[in-house]
């Protein structure tokens, strides 16, 4: 399978009080055509920054290094004009907040057609016809009427469907969805995920799904990259991540999921502590302060991402001990 996106040692640094700090540190992953990659981690671990960095939507003050190859072209080297042509045409984006992602002063129809007409030389009528069809595809009933309505007249779920329609209308090869269901209630979440899965299958779109919800990952993804404090700590096929969990952080995330079928009424096991702040990253393993298995070595040396089986990497010294 061909790679749609290949990111190599992507780093993002932000300027805080005159000094640069890594928000994303040496992140590498790839997405194959038609594949769904889940980027998982708790708040502030650099998931969104990674996605914004690769479409170059971060503030100019952010320092980005590394490579982000999209179909062989490095997105980080392209001119602004070339980026304009890629965004929305080849890479679609869906954001977390459907309530505020639409321009409040234009009708839905006009906002969907706008995306079409920005990238294609087509007539108004043709844009309208395609928009209507897209609205139907994202499962909106009465699309003719919705076309004529304003964002505030729609519910959150419908707005997110509209956002998906906007992101998908140019048939992009890659769709970046940044916590697309976080702001929605559970029943709508399931519908939206279903919709995204069906659309990406039918349009053969690769999906980069950013989420903190492992349930979503289990349902949607082929592969998973777990991020912690700006680094990828574990990466692998979804089955390996769930059933052959290697990194203590991933294990911690899995333990922190509420389960309805536990026999003993154990309390939920949270991961104690917080993500270290950007300005005070420990010099050893970044998870060491919160890790139940932390050894002396962890506090001193930062572990590299180690291949523990085919297509499964983990950043933990415990694996080194096993090998030796």
């Amino acid at each position, binding site marked *: 399978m061909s790679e749609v996106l290949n990111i190599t040692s992507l780093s993002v640094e932000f300027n805080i009080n005159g000094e640069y700090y890594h928000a994303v540190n040496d992140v590498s992953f790839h997405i194959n055509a038609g594949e769904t990659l889940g980027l998982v981690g708790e708040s502030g671990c650099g998931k969104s920054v990674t996605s914004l960095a690769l479409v170059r939507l971060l503030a100019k003050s952010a320092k980005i290094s590394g490579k982000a190859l999209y179909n062989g072209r490095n997105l980080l080297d392209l001119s602004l004009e070339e*980026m*304009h042509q890629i965004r929305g045409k080849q890479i679609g*984006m869906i954001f977390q907040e459907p309530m505020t992602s639409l321009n409040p002063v234009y009708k839905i129809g006009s906002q969907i057609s706008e995306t079409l007409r920005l*990238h294609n030389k087509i007539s108004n009528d043709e844009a309208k016809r395609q928009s209507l069809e897209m609205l139907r595809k994202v*499962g909106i009933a009465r699309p003719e*009427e919705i076309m004529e309505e304003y964002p*505030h007249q729609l519910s959150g779920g419908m707005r997110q469907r509209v956002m998906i329609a906007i992101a998908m209308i140019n048939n992009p090869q890659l769709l970046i969805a940044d916590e697309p269901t976080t702001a929605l209630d559970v029943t709508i979440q399931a*519908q939206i995920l*279903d919709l995204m899965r069906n659309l990406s299958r039918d349009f053969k779109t690769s999906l980069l799904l950013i989420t903190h919800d492992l349930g979503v990952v289990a349902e949607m993804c082929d592969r998973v990259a777990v991020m912690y404090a700006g680094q990828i700590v574990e990466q692998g096929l979804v089955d390996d991540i769930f059933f052959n969990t290697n990194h203590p952080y991933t294990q911690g995330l899995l333990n922190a999921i509420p389960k309805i079928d536990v026999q003993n009424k154990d309390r939920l096991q949270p991961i104690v502590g917080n993500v270290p702040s950007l300005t005070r990253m420990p010099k050893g393993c970044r998870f060491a302060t919160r890790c139940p298995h932390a050894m002396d070595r962890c506090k001193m040396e930062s572990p590299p991402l180690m291949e523990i089986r085919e297509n499964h990497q983990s950043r933990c010294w415990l694996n080194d001990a096993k090998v030796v």
Partner: protein
Amino acid sequence: MIQESLPLEASLVETIKDERPKFIHRFWKSGMTKLGVFLLLFLVLFSYVGPLIYRHSAINSHLLATDASPSAQFPLGTDSVGHNVLAQLMVGGQSSLEVGFAAAIVAMIFGTLYGMISGMAGGWVDTVMMRFVDILLSIPSIFILLFLNAVFQPNIFLMIFVLASTAWLGVSRLVRAEALTIKNQLYVEAAHAIGTRTLRIMVRYLFPNIIGTVLVASTFQVADAILYMAGLSFLGLGLPPPTPNWGGMLSDGMNYMFQNSWWLIYPPGLCILIAQVSINLIGDGLRNAIETRER
């Protein structure tokens, strides 16, 4: 096919009905707003239709009837050189209203452009542009206006630009503040994400979301401009004679206070007051109607 596999949001298919009354209804429901509109309408009719009905020259001097108190021939009396006060009041309203509205519109256009560019550009461009505004704002505007009017012999067009030269400052600050808020809204980020260019974002995303605020501010600018023009004329630096205007009439009348010529003071004063009150009431109504807009 996808359509079949998708559960439609059956319960949500009924969209939220737009039960919010239309803008014009929200604007019109307040009694004070109605009062403002009627007062302004009265002034407009008085100034433009009035002279067509009350056909007396505002410029001719009735030298045999100077300083006449109100009578059947001169409903509001005459001034010291025999000008018909009522006729002057009507014609004077024209220049006040024209200059007031035109100055506000010029200020609105320039201030909006300036503020949008400053807010959108950010960084040092923003800093330089806004410090320039700060510098101009730190000088009392009446001083700038007096200076400009003393240097140029003002005609009606010059007057518009002179008044606009200070009025745009406030607008530009307001617009910049709004632009800063809106450019960080998620829908603007989403616009970037679909490949929208900066100019288009300004036209399609910033401007329509700012225009409400600008419109309200500009309404108050109309009132300010009328007041400033009256003030300048009162100080003798307004439009040159023989064109009558309210501030100038007030100024002339002041000289004859000692002889109790109340008809020279109250009518122009009242006209200025009505203009201020009516426009401010309309501005309040507009603001209330726009601000209740669902976001």
